[in-house]
């Protein structure tokens, strides 16, 4: 779980996004327990309410579930759901930004395609 305090993204969203990434990267596997809000709170010195807000976003989406008295677990099929969700966001998150930057610098779409298909040898 990686929190960047200088980031433009609110802390609670960083919490939920980093858990998502850790699930996709198999750091947190399905049907296993993830760190508690207390552990995360004490590790980063962040108010537990903020951590809980981030966790609850994922509970609402069915990515995490609570086992009463035990803690928070990764749901079955969470990884599949998250990959689908992040694929859907890929365009908004990366492509729009890429096109915006390219437009600013006057780079044509064809050149972008060449960069993408040519790999590091491009130029």
């Amino acid at each position, binding site marked *: 779980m990686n929190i960047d*305090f200088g980031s*433009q*993204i*609110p*802390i*609670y969203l960083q919490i939920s996004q980093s858990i998502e990434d850790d699930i996709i990267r198999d750091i947190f596997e399905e049907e296993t327990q993830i760190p508690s809000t*207390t552990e995360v*709170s*004490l590790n*980063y*010195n*962040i*108010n*537990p*309410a*903020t951590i809980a*807000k981030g966790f609850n976003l994922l509970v609402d989406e069915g990515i995490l579930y609570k086992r009463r008295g035990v803690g928070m677990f990764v749901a079955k099929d969470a990884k599949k759901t998250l990959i689908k969700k992040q694929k859907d966001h890929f365009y908004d998150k990366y492509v729009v930004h890429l096109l915006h930057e390219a437009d600013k610098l006057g780079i044509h779409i064809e050149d972008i395609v060449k960069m993408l298909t040519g790999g590091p040898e491009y130029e």
Partner: protein
Amino acid sequence: MNNIELKSITKNYKATCALKDISLIFEEKRIYGLLGRNGAGKTTLLNLMTNRIFPTHGHITLSDQPITENDALLERIFYMTERNLYPESMKIHEVFRWTKTFYGNFDLNYANGLCKKFDLNPNKKIKALSTGYNTVAKLIVALASNAELLIFDEPILGLDAHHRTLFYKELLAQYIKTPKTIILSTHIIEEIADLLEWVVILGNQTVLINESVSSLLERAYTVTGKSSDVEAFIQNKNFIGLEYLGNYCKATLLETPNTETLETIHQIGLEKSKVGLQELFIKLTDIGGVLHEIPKIG
């Protein structure tokens, strides 16, 4: 409910007004940040809440009972003051024992454990302590007091980075174990911003902000771009700061941008960013806008 409620509080020191008609509720089991510039009345407010001084007008209650001269209520509040109030020749372990007589729930084992963690020798006398260790000693007493309300006035004065981190961790651990009301009054805003749930900002003898940190930060943002574009954009908007650097301009706004506003930002080609608590505080309390003048060199 263990809320502290201040009703229409005014405090005058002779001809000077320190606080003017303040009404505030500190709700139980929340971590509060009490922020304000020097002389904004933070310490006055804390002294009033702990019955060390009396308001000129208004009254203060804890759990709906007036706190004035009410020892049973005041025992539920521990106030760590910025000034050292312990006798200079007293040893730290004696301070612990003495505190125990006033705060029955004082946890001596925990206090001794904290001495080890903070590397403080409890056999030392108060007068032998450096500024940093003096603060450490006061923090340990406060943390171990087990009071329902913990108030800290400048809790990190002179502490090194290691001790500050240790303090934040112990404070949070306590709060998680037994939720209590915690009020942190400090100038070191950036470091404590993420510990806080709620923030109260004092200025002009009154309360400027009393809001959850997340909702406050959600409605604050900056836009940057060409001066003429930024100036046109902020018309009829609640902007609290405007900085120029040549033809570049940065405006800080305090209002939730609606879809239309976001669209405009995108169309004009302005860059929108989030604002941190410290930066927002500076903007809100920069009376006269002195920070925007660039000092002349040579």
